[in-house]
């Protein structure tokens, strides 16, 4: 079986203009329980009103620091955790309405950060890859598994019978990619999928991901904390802070101009890579606040150099700030917000 034959993908429905995935007002609070009866003590506001869309064939990068809710967003989109509120619409079909969870899972697959924890240690890798196809009743799961292993660069004759602990980290991540592809998904969520790999191996896997995207017409959601990697692989970038989206923009636009003060700090926190021009001043002080009890108003105002009294009272909404679909949630970019510096800072 050739690699392309392995792919029997769900047909396109809404045409190229319709986003492949639309997420609207997604909300997830995790209760922190305590005591014998497990009463709720507090709520972690992991994801709070997140909306975005992923266009067909694009790669959407999601960046943010730990606790910003990027992984939770991914797991909500794949249906691994139940959302409290919000809509998940896959190619025009709303989850729970015209789309069942099982159908959604056929269309979206996920690759996790920890390549070892994401493979069953007791199954050979061919079994792991074939499992999904078997569950979904696709034809010839084992042939499919072997074809995909070959496609991700692992010769089935040498590797199919091995157990995960017999492979290196890079090889295991290739298996995880093959496993995701075995379901012939249209959208693959890569949750820090290359972050744990050594740099030299990371580049190999990134090349592989680019090839697979072209070959199978895949759409990616690429979650990472490494801005260089996100810039390389993504078409658009979404920045999250404490469970909220603060900025969305095409890669070129956001590298040219970071509209939200948080995005700007995140970018200036990148090591300079120039020994003659090292970073001299940290862009932010302190750690990100705890998502259990996020600040009122704009969640970034406690660390923001431009914060005014308004920011502590009123939460800014995502609004258009550029022609190319550049969105940001900051009072600075809303001339009517009443922020003293509104519209004055580029």
């Amino acid at each position, binding site marked *: 079986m050739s690699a392309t034959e392995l792919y029997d993908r769900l047909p396109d429905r809404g045409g190229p203009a319709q986003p492949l995935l639309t997420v609207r007002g997604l909300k997830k609070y995790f209760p922190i329980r305590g005591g014998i009866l497990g009463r709720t003590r507090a709520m972690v506001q992991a994801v709070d009103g997140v909306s975005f869309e992923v266009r067909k064939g694009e790669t959407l990068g999601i960046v943010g620091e730990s606790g910003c809710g990027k992984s939770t967003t991914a797991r909500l989109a794949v249906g691994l955790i139940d959302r409290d509120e919000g809509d998940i619409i896959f190619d025009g079909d709303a989850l729970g309405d015209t789309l069942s969870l099982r159908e959604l899972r056929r269309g979206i697959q996920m690759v996790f950060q920890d390549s070892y924890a994401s493979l069953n240690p007791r199954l050979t890798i061919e079994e792991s890859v074939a499992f999904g196809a078997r569950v979904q009743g696709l034809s010839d799961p084992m042939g499919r598994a072997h074809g995909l292993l070959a496609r991700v660069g692992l010769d089935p004759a040498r590797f199919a019978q091995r157990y995960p602990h017999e492979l290196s980290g890079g090889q295991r991540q290739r298996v995880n990619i093959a496993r995701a592809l075995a379901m012939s998904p249209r959208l693959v969520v890569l949750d820090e999928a290359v972050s744990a790999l050594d740099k030299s191996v990371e580049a190999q896997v*990134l*090349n592989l991901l680019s090839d697979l995207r072209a070959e199978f017409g895949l759409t990616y959601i690429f979650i990472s904390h490494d801005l260089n990697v996100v810039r*390389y692989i993504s078409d658009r970038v979404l920045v999250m802070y404490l469970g909220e989206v603060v900025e969305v923009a095409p890669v070129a636009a956001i590298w040219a101009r970071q509209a939200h003060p948080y995005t700007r700090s995140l970018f200036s926190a990148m090591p300079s890579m120039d020994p003659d021009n090292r970073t*001299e001043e940290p862009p932010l002080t302190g750690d990100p606040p705890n998502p259990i009890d996020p600040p009122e108003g704009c969640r970034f105002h406690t660390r923001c150099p431009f914060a005014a009294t308004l920011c502590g009272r009123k939460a800014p909404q995502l609004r258009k700030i550029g022609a190319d679909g550049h969105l940001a949630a900051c009072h600075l970019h809303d001339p009517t917000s009443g922020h003293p510096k509104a519209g004055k800072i580029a």
Partner: protein
Amino acid sequence: MTDKLLEIDHLTVRFKGARTIHAINDLSLSLGEGETLALLGESGSGKSVTLKALLRLLPPKRTEIEGDIRVGGTDILRLSGRSLQRYRGGDVSMVFQEPALALDPVYTVGAQIAETVMRHKGVSRSEAMEVALDMLKRVKIPSPERRLQNYPHELSGGMRQRVMIALALACRPRLLLADEPTTALDATVQIQILLLLRELQKEFGMGVIFVTHDIGVAVEISERIAVMYAGQIVEEGTTREIIKDPRHPYTRGLLAANLHDVARGERLAAIPGAPPALETRPASCSFAPRCALAGPDCRAGLPPVVTPAPRRRVACLRADEAVPAE
């Protein structure tokens, strides 16, 4: 040239067990007083093992160590008992990757720092607490008086790492070993810790060995960089030399893989394959199987160490060849 604070001579470390692992193979390195050196390498390159050997933290029963390690002239491989205790935490101290694991959860932050100071300096408890408070101020922890009474779990990740640094520096070591201290931190916190370490290094004038896998971090923190691969140093030089004029094909590959200035969609010049398993002592260039420039001569024997400039070295037969057109 500065006095030698640290000299490692032909260090070899082997782990014995079901199979032998040749973790460090004939490694030599020197560090002057007040110098900051980054040990750059990927997982399994032996960078952390080198640090542990420096602190004598390797399990003696399973480890074979050959060679010489001298800190300020003292042969530390011969230290034992009291003198080893004085050496650890006194002359040399260490900052770990996971402060949550390296700090004792049952003592307050202040008590832990004070305890170390009392043990090494022989001062009273109240004097030691003064030192602890002073250290917390120096690592820029807000409201330090209150933080002295906190337990590690009550602090955020960045604060814990600051406490870890305060603890390591409390006895004014001459050499600070840092094992990926910012890897577990968020980007905006990482840069704060890096700048703090840079500032404290100037203030205290200590030598620093900073182990990292991230070139960007190495550039921010260090004056010199030693690149490790398969238990050996393949290239060493000033940070500027390594970044602007890398000679070893592995260093070049690492720089390319950092994606700092790669155009979108361009195919990455990835180093193929994976690092060797180190089950045998390398008899030829360890990087040759992955190297685009390797020829039969590279596989025939260990590469020569070329020294294009003072204190600069490259372990490669092709070090002098022109940088391939990119």
